[in-house]
């Protein structure tokens, strides 16, 4: 099993009602599997919202294997400026 921290921002936090999730998954779980899990928890509230994946504070391709201790964030469209 691997421990994963998911940080939630903006629409993701709004949809899940939480800032941080501490989760456990089987080894070999990928970021896209985690995204499906998170979207499931949102009960449709993230439908139609594109999410980019940040792994340990860097953008990564969707299909990246997670490691124990990873910090993941699903980044909804950003709005800086």
């Amino acid at each position, binding site marked *: 099993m691997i421990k994963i921290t998911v940080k939630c*921002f*903006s*629409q993701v936090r*709004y949809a899940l009602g939480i800032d941080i999730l501490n989760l456990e998954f089987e080894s070999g779980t990928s970021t896209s599997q985690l995204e499906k899990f998170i979207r499931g928890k949102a009960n449709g509230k993230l439908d139609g919202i594109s999410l980019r994946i*940040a792994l340990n504070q*860097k953008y990564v391709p969707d299909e990246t294997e997670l490691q124990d201790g990873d910090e993941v*964030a699903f980044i909804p469209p*950003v709005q*800086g*400026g």
Partner: protein
Amino acid sequence: MVKAEIVNGPIDFFPSEDSRQQDGAELIFNGRVRATEHGENITALEYEQYEGMAEAELTQLAEEAMNKFPIHDLFCKHRIGKVDVGETSLHVSIWSKHRREGLDAMDWFILELKKRVPIWKWAILQNGSRIPSECNH
């Protein structure tokens, strides 16, 4: 040279200076909060960031701009937290030999910032309520 900071509170502008020898162009952009978002009157925006990643992405973006355009310096600050109408949320200062590369770099930098830097905003309405903002020009 690059400076990139996320600041919580009013932005101190980078100093304008008369001591440079080879920079014929100083270009400064201040992005400010407007009183309307999607036709609704607001009193402020509230910016949230992905702490750590926002500053790292901003820094990396500034470095990419330095590699992509023949500019000498790119300094930028993005404010987070509550920013009242009229106040500056984004301050960018670019020094270059000629204006052309400064204008091009400014254009590119802000466009990319609005795609990549993990910062989000909420609109604070006149009645005090706080709603997600969808506007991203």
